[in-house]
């Protein structure tokens, strides 16, 4: 019997202790059920500058795809057959390259430079790789940033998405 109860009041100390015990039990249960979330929030080291040890594999997949696209621009879409890319992306690339190589369109000169800016892990063992690429078309260079999603395909990685990241247009230029 607590001191408060002995004086006829509420046993506040006992109630506080019980509430604390309940809270600890609830946290323990929640941690057991949703361990991954608690582990990431409380015990994982802070994330570094968007790189990790396995990022080179993702970068390699992106560079291999860029090299295949480069060959395909100059020599035909057959160069894409062994490219490390998903079926949907390959279909888009074939259509784009076929259009770029249409009669009278001039010959694309291909990849001038590719810099990997960042590689960030995503759920499911996937990676988001950011690049800046310079490609030559009809004597003019086109420098664009791209965002690639690289996902596991068995033991290998393959590129599932390739999205250009366009610079923010200047609002001053609005007519």
């Amino acid at each position: 019997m607590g001191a408060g109860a002995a004086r006829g009041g509420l046993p506040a100390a006992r109630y506080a202790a019980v509430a604390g015990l309940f809270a600890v039990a609830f946290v323990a249960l929640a941690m057991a059920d949703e361990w991954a979330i608690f582990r990431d929030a409380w015990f994982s080291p802070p994330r570094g500058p968007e790189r990790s040890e396995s990022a080179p594999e993702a970068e390699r997949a992106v560079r291999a795809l860029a090299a295949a696209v480069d060959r395909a621009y100059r020599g035909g879409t057959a160069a894409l057959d062994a490219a490390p890319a998903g079926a949907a992306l390959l279909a888009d690339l074939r259509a784009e390259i076929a259009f770029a190589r249409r009669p009278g369109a001039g010959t694309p000169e291909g990849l001038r430079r590719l810099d990997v800016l960042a590689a960030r892990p995503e759920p499911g063992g996937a990676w988001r790789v950011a690049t800046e690429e310079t490609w030559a078309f009809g004597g003019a260079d086109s420098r664009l940033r791209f965002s690639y999603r690289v996902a596991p395909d068995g033991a290998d990685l393959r590129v599932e998405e390739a999205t250009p990241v366009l610079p923010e247009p200047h609002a001053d230029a609005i007519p």
Partner: protein
Amino acid sequence: MPTPFRSGLRLLGARAATPYLLLGYGAFLVLLAVWSLRTPPATVGAIARLAPFGLIYAVAAAHLVACLILSWPALRQRISLAVPAGESGVPIDLRAHELAAAAGRARLRLRWTESERAGVLSRHRFAPLGTVVSHGALLLLPLALAASRATRFRGDAWIVEGHAFGGTRDEYVHVEPGGDFAARAPDVRFQVEAVEAKFWGRRLFFTDLRALVVPPGGRSAWMTLAQPLRLGGARVSIHGFNVTPSFELVRADGVLLESGDLNLRLFPPGAEDSFRLPPLPHRFWVRLRDADGGYAMTRPRLHVAVTMGKQLVAHGWRAPGEPIAFDGFRLTLPAVRRGGEIMVHRDLGYPLAWLALALLLAGAATRILLPSVRVWVRFEGGVAHAIVREDAFFGDPATILGRLAPPRRP
């Protein structure tokens, strides 16, 4: 000798357990509230549905039922008109023919039995049952949860003025729960006549957002930020604004190849979205701003960029109707339409939960605000004796007796 059932009932309904169960719930709800600030709702929901917590709900419900059963005999006595056993009452200065007038003075209802020369006066006799009603209402909450789990549907969709919303799966951007769409989705269909948004000056704060919709065979009605519509048994509310252009694709020789309305997300100004027009391999990226600044879109300007593979083919700001040329084609975005994000919500657990809340409040109000008074008056040899029971939070039996007649000094 107590039976095992009665012993179990007493254990389950022990009054001493009530504060601890309430403390447990309090701690649980506080933790859920804290987690919900930083954790995805699905995770908080998963935690709340954990089996051990389900056990606590069941124990609390069983405790409540046991308490109600155990307290019923005492409660029945508190609403009974039977003369309390073993009490003779206090003598009061009252004649039998004055009793009806005295009852009126004290605002009590009189039941008189001539053969026994006795009467019972009462007011709000059944008010103590408010305790049962308010506590029993809590038992409706599990039913509400079960009904919610069986019928809950929430879908988010984008609507565009001038277009119809048919409530099909493809039109919803997001649906909860994921499966069983055909069985759960309400029949919500309407034509969008107009979408209007007003902003607070040049700030991104809505002062008004509304959509004029016409259900099939129905009358047009405004759906506003504050006032959802009820359609097909569901609440349909608008909570987001959008603008999206129409398009025309023309060949260099002027032949119109394709035209239509796009469903892009271009709001707030500066947001970028893209579309493709197969079989062309190009992707068209669009941003929208108001040349006057702000969000009213009085002078909309569209930034259109055309990419093809690794190449930025063309880009630039255009007014609606101004074409952008690329690779032997011209793309024009001739008009900008307003649209909105709607939420379709149906949950049959809600009516039950509201009923539970109403019963909880009604029961508590009855118990607290309506004092139950019972007075037994018996005449023997010309002398009246009264027994008073006042079951009220702020009551005073002496006051009742004083209103009937001043007590006679012994």
